[in-house]
């Protein structure tokens, strides 16, 4: 019986938590698992195939209930948790945050601060496949890029899986649901889809922790994560925002430096 299961079992048995949010084996790949009984903990798994970002559940009060909840967090999940905490979305005293190291040791974090220190050793790096696609796009002419995105986004049918899977999209009312004025066309159409993605990217500026859940979730396979990844790069260059780390002075778009550089304002 591995350490994670031991830990989960004791947490549940001792009544420290009401449920453990982790992973179980699914149809094709592992899937989120809400474990509420000690006898079910044996289903818990943890490996590199576990890619869902479970932080997405931590902003859903009706799921968490009033008791304490434990969550088995991957690196991306931890990053999201830190950002969510910074954005006042989490109650430290209601969460037990666990992670499993490569040596299959279970770590229980004393608090959000400890997670930050832990994360220091893990730089967020964008994987080659995405980087190549970004480079390819940047290599294209403006017109080619436009055609690329129009074609990709014409497939979007606005199921908002990207939004639902993103831990940072926790608004009670998303901008696309605002109808006075109707900023974004609510029906699926290339324009509305592009406007939605531009909004999503802008809203994630300096907040995206680069977990890639949005693209992972997209049923029609649009590489929308490129938008935020590309933005991360830019923000890093322009304003020294560290990808996957919250900017303690406030969001990159809600703060400024008088010496900020630009080369296009006349």
């Amino acid at each position: 019986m591995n350490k994670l299961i031991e830990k989960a079992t004791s947490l549940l048995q001792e009544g420290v938590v009401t449920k453990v949010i982790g992973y179980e084996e699914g149809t094709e790949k592992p899937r989120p698992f809400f474990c509420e009984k000690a006898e079910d903990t044996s289903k818990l798994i943890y490996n590199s195939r576990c890619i869902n970002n479970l932080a997405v559940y931590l902003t859903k009060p009706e799921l968490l209930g009033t008791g304490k909840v434990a969550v088995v967090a991957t690196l991306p999940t931890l990053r999201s948790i830190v950002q969510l905490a910074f954005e006042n979305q989490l109650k430290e005293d209601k969460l037990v945050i666990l992670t499993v190291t490569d040596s299959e040791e279970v770590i229980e974090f004393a608090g959000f601060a400890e997670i930050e220190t832990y994360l220091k050793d893990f730089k967020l790096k964008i994987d080659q496949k995405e980087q190549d696609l970004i480079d390819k796009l940047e290599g294209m002419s403006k017109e080619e890029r436009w055609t690329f995105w129009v074609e990709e986004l014409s497939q979007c049918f606005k199921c908002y899986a990207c939004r639902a899977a993103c831990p940072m999209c926790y608004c009670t009312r998303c901008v696309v649901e605002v109808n006075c004025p109707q900023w974004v066309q609510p029906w699926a159409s290339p324009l509305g889809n592009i406007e939605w993605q531009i909004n999503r990217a802008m809203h994630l500026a300096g907040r995206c922790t680069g977990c890639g859940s949005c693209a992972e979730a997209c049923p029609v396979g649009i590489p929308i994560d490129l938008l935020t990844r590309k933005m991360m790069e830019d923000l890093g260059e322009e304003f020294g925002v560290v990808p996957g780390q919250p900017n303690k002075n406030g969001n990159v778009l809600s703060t400024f430096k008088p010496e900020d550089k630009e080369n296009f304002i006349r």
Partner: protein
Amino acid sequence: MEKRYISKEGLNKWFNQIIQSDKRLFAPVQKGEKVEFKRVKSFEEVASDYIQTTQSIKRVAFPRAEVLFSYKKEEKETTLQDFNPDTVPETVLWKIHPCDAAGFIPLTGIFNWDYKDKLYNARLAKTTMVSFSCQKSDNSCFCTSVNGGPGNTAGSDIQITLLPDGGALAEILTPKGEALVTLAPECFEAEREIKKEDYLADVPVRFNVKELTGKLASSFDSPVWKQQSERCLGCGACAFVCPTCACFDIQEDAKGSTGRRIRCWDSCGFSMFTLHTSGHNPRQQQSQRWRQRILHKFSYMPERIHELGCTGCGRCSRACPVDMNILEHLTSIAQQSHE
């Protein structure tokens, strides 16, 4: 219903005849890892080796977004431009699965249950369906559990069953089908002794649908909904890939003196789907929305239109970001012992 044999070349020739006609033809096309129905111009574009397209083909009759009517105001005068059925082009659906064809039956039921939907019916009337029986399936498929099957001809105008020799058995099922044959009658040879079942995929029956609907009748307050829906993210992926989901929203698109009313897809899985202006939401929780989805397909639709709202195509399970496997959930309900 007549059965004919059609050779590999014949099939190809017939296809080209259709392409050259005034009809639009949609067929599965491979793009990256995904296969989708797209408008095709050549036989080569058609995907061959795949299980299921990501999306259903319902959009030919029920588009993601469609203009119901548009209007223009000049001073105090308002002129209305209504939907014109004549603008709908003749369409052929090529190489859809039996479950795709079958999907239009409940859909038609919904769009004609009380009000006869002009737009849907006009589009469907101009659509001819050439389904190909399934020789492959995966463990998300469960058509046989919901009164369908790999060789099910319901809803199809013609059904093609491919044979080892490259030729195929053609079942011409409807006048629409016959009309399509007339584009290249010479390609259709006399029927040969063919046992269709031999060439069909084996899709095991996973649950007894009677048993399921029986259980559902009394399951409204069951804890199962909460258990099953806990991981559900509340996105619309399942509804939008589904061949039978028909929820829609009506939107007003007004610009100065002109405007149009638009119907677009919606999903009962969205938290705002039932939100009232007052702030009250009768389906506050995801579990209630999940229950609605299942009950609508397996209780309410059978009651109202005498059709199941599910063809067992398994698309929702494949599309779900958190693996809300409908088959698994249905099976567990069906096998639940009543407490």
